[in-house]
C-alpha cells in the first residue's frame, strides 16, 4: 500500500465497457472499488454486488414514527389535555384524526427517505480524493470511471495499474489522497 494514494482510476467512454471492467475487477478479487457515472446504471448494482440497502427499512420506520406521533398528538390534545365537550360528542373521535395522521406519516417517511439517503451516502461531503483527478469533472457529463482503492488488500500500485490498463480504458490515473 502506497502512502498518499487514494487509489487508481480508469476512464471509459462507454457505459458497457465500464460494466465489463467492474465485473472483471471483482472477478480478479478486488473488493474496495467504486464506479462513477453521469447517470444511474442498474447493471452496475449487479456488477459491484450492491444489493442491500437499509433505506427502505428506515423509511418504513420513519413513516410509522411520523404516523404514531401525529395520532398521539391529536389523542393527547383532544382527549387528555384540552377536552372540549361539543354537544356530548365523544372526545376520542378517531375518524377525524385520520387526515392529519396520514400527512404526518408521509412527512416522517419523506424526511427519512431524503435525510437517510444523504446520511447513508455520507453527504454533504466537502472533500473527496476522486476530485483530485482533473478529468473527473467529466464524470458528470459523458465519461465513466472505475476506481480501485488503495485500502483494497490486493492493491499494488504497479500490478493494479497493469490490470486496469489491460481493460482498455481511455486513460488510467493515480488518485492522490
Amino acid at each position, binding site marked *: 500500500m502506497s502512502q498518499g494514494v487514494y487509489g487508481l482510476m480508469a476512464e471509459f467512454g462507454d457505459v458497457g465497457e465500464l460494466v465489463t471492467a467492474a465485473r472483471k475487477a471483482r472477478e480478479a478479487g478486488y473488493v474496495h472499488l467504486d464506479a462513477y457515472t453521469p447517470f*444511474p446504471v442498474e447493471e452496475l448494482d449487479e456488477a459491484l454486488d450492491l444489493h442491500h440497502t437499509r433505506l427502505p427499512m428506515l423509511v418504513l420506520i420513519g413513516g410509522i414514527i411520523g404516523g404514531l406521533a401525529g395520532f398521539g398528538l391529536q389523542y393527547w390534545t383532544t382527549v387528555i389535555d384540552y377536552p372540549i365537550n361539543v354537544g356530548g360528542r365523544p372526545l376520542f373521535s378517531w375518524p377525524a384524526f385520520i*387526515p392529519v395522521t*396520514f400527512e404526518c406519516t408521509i412527512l416522517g417517511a419523506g424526511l427519512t427517505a*431524503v435525510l437517510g*439517503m444523504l446520511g447513508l451516502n455520507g453527504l454533504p461531503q466537502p472533500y473527496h480524493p476522486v476530485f483530485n483527478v482533473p478529468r473527473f469533472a467529466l464524470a458528470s457529463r459523458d465519461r465513466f470511471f472505475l476506481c480501485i482503492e488503495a485500502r483494497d488488500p490486493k492493491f499494488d500500485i504497479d500490478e493494479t495499474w497493469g490490470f486496469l490498463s489491460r481493460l482498455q480504458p481511455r486513460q488510467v490515473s493515480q488518485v492522490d489522497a
Partner: protein
Amino acid sequence: MANGTQIPRDERRSLSSHLPPVVQPGHTMASVTDKISSVVLTRQTPRAWFIGLAISFSLTMLLLVAVTYLLAKGTGIWGVNIPVAWAFAIINFVWWIGIGHAGTLISAILLLLRQEWRTSINRFAEAMTLFAVACAGLYPLLHMGRPWLAYWLFPYPNTMGMWPQFRSPLVWDVFAVSTYLLVSLLFWFIGLIPDLATLRDRSPSRVGRFVYGLLAMGWRGSARHWHRYEMAYLLLAGLSTPLVVSVHTIVSFDFAVAQLPGWHATVFPPYFVAGAIYAGFAMVMILAIPLRRFYGLQDFVTMRHLDNMARITLATGMFVAYGYMMETFMAWYSGSIFESALMTNRFSGPYAAWYWALLVFNVLIPQALWFTRVRSSTVALFLIAVSVSIGMWLERFIIVVVSLHRDFLPSSWGMYYPTFWDWAMYLGSIGLFFSLLFLFLRFLPMISIFEMRTLLPGAEVKEENP
C-alpha cells in the same frame, strides 16, 4: 408501457414508431449536457427573459402594495363580507394549489408508471408546483385577518393552554399543505443534486463553482450513491402519489364537510383531484410551449410531449365535466329544495353568466383536443390551455361565491363584488409565480440533465462478453 422493463428498448421504439420521438435523434450525452446547462452557464441571457421578469416583477410589487395595505387596513379592503366571506382568497388558494398538482403527478405518478416521456418536463413542472403552492399558501394566511398570529394554527405548547381543533378540515389543510410543500421541495431538490454537480463541474466562474458546489453537497456519481439515490427517489415518488391525492381531497373537505348546498357533496374529493390535474396540465402546457420555443428546446420537449399532455388534459377534463353533470343530477335526484334552488341559481341567478362561461371554457372548448390536428398545433394547444386555466378559476368562483351568496334563508342572501384589491392580490400572485419561474430558468437547469442522459441510445449497456 406499465411493464416497460420486460420489453427491450428497440422493440419499444418500434411499438411507438408512429409517434414523434421523446428525444430527437442525433443527441449524445455531451450534447444534451451542454445544451441544457448552457442556458444557465454560458449563453447570453435572452432579452425576452429580462422583459418577462420585468413584467412579472412589477406585478409582484403590486402584490407587495396589496399585502401592505391589507395588513394596515384589514380584510375590509376586499369585497368579502357576510354571507360571502371566502371569495377571492379561497378561490385563488384552490386554483393555485390545483395547478401545483400536475407537477407532482408528472414527477411521481408518471415515474411509477414508467412513462419515459415525463423526463424532459418533470423538472420545470416540479418547480411550477413549488411556486404555485407558495402562491396558494399566501391566501389562507392573509385571509386570516391577523396573519401575524398564523402560528396559532400549529400545535405548540402555549401560555393560553389551548390546542388546535383537530376535527376541523381547516386544521387538516394546514398539515396537508405544509407537508405537501415540504415533500415537493425535497423531491425537487433531490432530483436537482446530480445536475447541480454537473453545473459545479462545468461552471466557468468561481462564484458558480462555489454556489453549485455547495448545493451539490459533494455529489460524485458513485455507483453506491446512485443505488441509494434511485431507491430514495422511487420511495419519494411512491409517497408523493397518495400525498397529492390526499392534499386536494382535504382541500375539497374544506367545502364538503360544511352543510351548505353546493358544498355538501360526496363527489367533491375525486372531482377536485381531477380538476387539479386538469388545471395543472393546462399550466404545464402554458409554460412548456413558449419555453421550448424561446430556448430552442424542441429536441427535448417534442410534439410527443405536447400530444401526451393534451390527451391527459382531455381525459381529466372529461372527469371534471362528469363532476358538473353529477352535481346537477344529484341536485334533482336528492329531492332537496335547497339543492335544486342552488342549481337554478347557478343556471339563471345573478352569476349565471359566469357559470355558462365556465361550461364554455372548461367543457366545450377543450373538446377540440379530440382532433389530431389541434393536438399538433402549438398555438391551438396554448389557447386551449389558457381557456382551461380560466375555466378552472371560474369553477372555483362558482363553488365559493355562488354557493355562499344564497343559502337557506332569503333574509341572509347577499351579493359579492370583487374590489380593486381583490384583483391586485390575484394579479400580484401571478406576478410572483412568474418571477420565481423566470429566476428558476436563469439559475437552475430547467430539464433534468441526468435523466435525459438515460434516454439516449448511449445509455444502454452493451457488454462484449458478459
